[in-house]
């Protein structure tokens, strides 16, 4: 038995989980219909795929949610996991699931996938026969992903950085890298049986004034870590920046450089797709305005020529949306994409050159770290602040980079911390903003900029 398989046996041996039948799972995946694989749909590339977020505690309510989504002609079903499962607190999930079932009231903010198990969940997923995307935010997602794959969920979101720095305070980063290596290995293994399992990185990060160069570097690095393990289908992503132009520039650069680095490191057979997240920051507490924001984001997603868009709902500022509200959001988005025609292809040479230079400088610094493996290089880079995510709750994150919006809504770096971007690039960033004179005013401006869509 391989080392990986031995590790797998340990992982799935958990008091909260029914016994895993790996052979049965393998044959299920081998014979699974192509429709369940998003990588299969990406191949057609005939339209921008629409995917909401959504997860309810009970099987019954989750099933009903999928039914609503199907009526709205959804492209990709989501399975969002509750925050206890995310932090491997299966005991709490179990307790709250029981309470939710008894009281017909939602005591969890997502679907506790591990608690329900793969046998149950697979019934639902094969019933609807649409690709399902696993949305979580889990540093140690090993058991979760085994359960997902067994269930027929063939797109796994996350990664050691993007599901750590925004989603955890104390979880040891080095462990996260190893746990995600496991995830990638398992995905790569199953990818050989049928269409490839798609891995997706989570570009929005903290959704709070993260500069595009940091997003792109993290996307590329997580992609490379997955490709190292044999993953063949990968989606890079980012969320609305707050400036249409910055979104377009980010898209152009991320497409170009993710391909560039994949090829450079010898993974030219990988299929790379682009996912665009609608505004991930604070939403207005007015549902009509939220609808407007959502639709504007749909238009931008089409303009940046994403392959998939992940959408929000008019309930965002209030709480987990009702299923009707969520399905309505899908229907609205599909309508806009259907009627929106004749999109121009836009470029901004100067902005793209600057962003590209920033990304390459940081990538150079990461790749030339003295460590022996890529994950250790990245680990060191985060620890030293070469990669630094604003507003990360994680203790290891440097938290030195400070950003602010310019008059056109672009996120600009005003304190580069340890980011190894050139003086020229940093000067370019600073030249775009009129910095308020006092520290208090800068803080007020940052608070104001966080609420750009309020």
């Amino acid at each position: 038995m391989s080392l990986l398989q031995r590790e797998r046996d340990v992982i799935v041996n958990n008091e909260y989980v029914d016994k895993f039948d790996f052979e049965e799972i393998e044959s299920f995946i081998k014979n699974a219909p192509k429709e369940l694989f998003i990588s299969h749909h990406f191949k057609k590339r005939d339209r921008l795929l629409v995917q909401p977020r959504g997860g309810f505690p009970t099987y019954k309510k989750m099933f009903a949610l999928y039914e609503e989504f199907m009526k709205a002609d959804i492209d990709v079903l989501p399975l969002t996991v509750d925050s206890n499962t995310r932090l491997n607190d299966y005991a709490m999930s179990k307790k709250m699931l029981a309470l939710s079932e008894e009281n017909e009231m939602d005591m969890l903010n997502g679907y506790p996938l591990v608690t329900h198990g793969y046998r149950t969940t697979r019934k639902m997923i094969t019933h609807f026969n649409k690709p399902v995307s696993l949305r979580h935010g889990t540093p140690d997602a090993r058991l979760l992903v085994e359960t997902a794959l067994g269930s027929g969920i063939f797109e796994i979101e996350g990664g050691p950085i993007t599901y750590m720095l925004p989603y955890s305070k104390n979880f040891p980063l080095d462990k996260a890298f190893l746990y995600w290596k496991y995830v990638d290995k398992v995905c790569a293994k199953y990818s050989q049986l049928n269409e490839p399992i798609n891995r997706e990185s989570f570009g929005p990060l903290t959704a709070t004034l993260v500069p595009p160069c940091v997003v792109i570097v993290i996307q590329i690095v997580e992609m490379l870590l997955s490709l190292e393990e044999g993953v063949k289908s990968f989606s890079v992503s980012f969320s609305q920046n707050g400036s249409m132009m910055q979104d377009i520039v980010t898209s152009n650069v991320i497409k170009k450089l993710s391909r560039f680095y994949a090829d450079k490191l010898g993974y030219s057979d990988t299929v790379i797709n682009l996912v665009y997240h609608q505004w991930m920051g604070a939403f207005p507490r007015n549902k009509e305005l939220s609808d407007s924001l959502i639709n504007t984001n749909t238009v931008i997603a089409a303009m940046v020529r994403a392959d998939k868009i992940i959408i929000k709902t008019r309930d965002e500022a209030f709480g987990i949306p009702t299923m009707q509200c969520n399905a309505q959001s899908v229907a609205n988005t599909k309508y806009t994409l259907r009627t929106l025609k004749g999109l121009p292809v836009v470029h901004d040479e100067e902005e793209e050159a600057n962003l590209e230079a920033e990304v390459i400088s940081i990538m150079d610094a990461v790749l030339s770290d003295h460590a022996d493996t890529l994950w250790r290089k990245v680990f060191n880079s985060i620890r030293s602040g070469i990669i630094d995510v604003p507003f990360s709750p994680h203790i290891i994150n440097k938290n030195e980079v400070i950003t602010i919006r310019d008059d056109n809504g672009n996120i600009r770096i005003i304190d580069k911390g340890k980011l190894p971007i050139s003086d020229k690039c940093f000067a370019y960033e600073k030249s775009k903003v009129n910095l308020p004179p006092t520290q208090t005013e800068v803080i007020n401006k940052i608070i104001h900029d966080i609420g750009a869509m309020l």
Partner: protein
Amino acid sequence: MKVVTGVVGNDIHVVANRLIDISLQARGCEVFNLGVNTSLEEFIDAVVETDADILLISSLNGEAEGWCRDLQFLRAEYQLRDVVFVIGGNLAVGEAKDSDIVPKYKSYGFDLVFHQVDLNTGLDALEQYMKDRS
């Protein structure tokens, strides 16, 4: 005034937490910020340790109810009758009404409950409450 603050449970929404830290300091408080992902026990420990006047808990992701039900027992156990217990943020999963939420959390042992209340409005109310009390 000493304030212990943080985000309860498996909740990692840090943005409000950072702003609360800044705002409390601007209002002249001594702030002990435990950050996100903090258990009720950790909060109580910090209150005892720092001899705080106020415990100000945030919750954003809808988990609070599951965590805070036991507050009344802890409060009695540690005899923290003089400490003001405040909670704010987004206190339910899904959309919920104030008229359901506020009494519920008061019954768990909170003195002040701010469900989806703007930060400054809440902190103003807190200051007023502290004045009325002394």
